[in-house]
């Protein structure tokens, strides 16, 4: 079972992101579960959503305490809360930022480049979508980084979820993010 925790702020669509991951996995014939951090947080407040992916039926209902992947939609959260809490030793971290990991004081030792990565998702969104909405975009990066779901499944999920125009832009941005991560990962292996 692969478990994901997504950090963001109210209004940034963390729940949508979690549901898109679940949808992508479902489209690949697997079981998935997505759920919000049940609460009454308002726009702007730090929020999280969860996704589980498995080949068997998912019965467990507890919150995810040891995620295999963490997606941070808003870099400003890093200073605010411990977004890495409970990350499994081999877990992945995806941060929406134009900065480098070093800029966040993450050293290669505890943040190996093949599992930790920053992606300028907001820029890509603006570029392809014309709106600073990074949540779906990050899923392209998520597919490239974790390989838990394929970029095609992600794009399919996006297409099912959004209106055609919105979907096209998001797919383009997600694919761009996917490429971005692919190339980054190549760099890391050659380094």
């Amino acid at each position: 079972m692969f478990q994901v925790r997504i950090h963001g702020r109210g209004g940034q669509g963390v729940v949508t992101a979690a549901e898109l991951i679940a949808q992508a996995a479902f489209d690949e014939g697997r079981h998935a579960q997505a759920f919000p951090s049940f609460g009454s947080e308002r726009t702007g407040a730090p929020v999280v959503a969860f996704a589980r992916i498995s080949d068997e039926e998912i019965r467990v209902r507890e919150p995810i305490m040891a995620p295999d992947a963490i997606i941070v939609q808003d870099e400003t959260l890093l200073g605010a809360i411990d977004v890495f809490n409970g990350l499994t030793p081999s877990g992945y971290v995806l941060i929406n930022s134009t900065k480098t990991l070093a800029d966040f004081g993450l050293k290669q030792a505890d943040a190996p480049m093949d599992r930790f990565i920053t992606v300028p998702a907001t820029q890509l969104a603006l570029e392809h979508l014309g709106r600073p909405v990074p949540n779906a975009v990050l899923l392209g990066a998520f597919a490239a980084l974790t390989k838990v779901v394929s970029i095609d499944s992600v794009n399919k999920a996006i297409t099912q979820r959004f209106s055609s125009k919105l979907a096209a832009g998001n797919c383009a941005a997600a694919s761009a993010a996917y490429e971005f991560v692919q190339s980054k990962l190549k760099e890391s292996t050659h380094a």
Partner: protein
Amino acid sequence: MLRQVEGSKAVADAVACCRPEVICAYPISPQTHIVEGLSRLVKAGDLKNCEFVNVESEFAAMSVAIGASATGARTYTATASQGLLFMVEAVFNASGLGLPIVMTVANRAIGGPINIWNDHSDSMSQRDSGWIQLYAETNQEAADLHVQAFRIAEELSLPVMVCMDGFILTHASEQVDIPEQEQVDAFLPPYSPRQVLNPDEPVSIGAMVGPEAFMEVRYMAHAKTLLALEKIPQVAKDFEKVFHRDSGGLVRPYHCEDAETVVIALGSVLGTIKDVVDELREKGTSIGVLGIITFRPFPFEAVRNALKNAKRVVVVEKAFSIGIGGIVSENVKGSISEQKTPIYTVIAGLGGRPITKTSLHALFHQAFNDSLEPLTFLDLDQDLVEREIIREGSK
């Protein structure tokens, strides 16, 4: 059709397939997504011959449902928590008049202090309301139970409450085989009311009944409700014939036959418990789970049979009766009163407190060596409560 979908949406689609004629509801978390979905279907014309009434309170919601049902319309509403408490007077009236209304309760704690998160305090408070109460373990079952609920309600002329855990189920996206319209039509015949307001055949519904007949009225309500214990399994069987899956019924035993320890619970927590049970059984522990789907009327016999071989029973419940303790466990005691089996009451997950596998493992190990208190509060911050009790007592 199998879909990855939010629980609320799954229920909304399932209810829509039942061709309700009147839907009324008042917004309250975490039930809102269900009625939002239905209002959309009505407005879009996808759900025809149906009136969606935006009422001004839950009390009005149940009252509108009463009027609609008494006029022979298939009627649905949904609520939770304070909303359910606000409609209580009408809730009792609906069952008293024998109106087959189906209501979803998206289970949530009741205040004060106000708390929007999940537990069973709301529906448990209505256990004596004369409604049939069904508890869903998964979103699949939640969807299926609604389809069955209309048949049970209409065949017995009794209202049915379908309870599903707020947020944990209502807001969780998972795969659900949404009932197809043809299937539902094959399973659920059009509503033919037992009594109906009809100018061509007028009757007076809702008389005042005095001491000379009130006991009899109540007794007959009890007798009629007990019929549900046969009706519900039949309906579940019929459902399986049409939909090819096991959903609903009275109870759902899981490795109970040979289990020394049997855990009893209602609703979505059963999934987490089953995971723990599997892990324990792999280590050779003799443990099973009994899920109670039908809590009202209480299936004494089914519970008794499931517990025949149990050496101990752990009841994990998401509500409790202040000053007494377990509610479900009290009923369980009633079904095995002649046995000496120890019954441990575990109050867990109140007000949305997560029920984790880790905590359950620890809990069950205590149970195995019978070191459990008769009444335990799972993951209670013991230091805090002791400190506070002393502080308040010292005033």
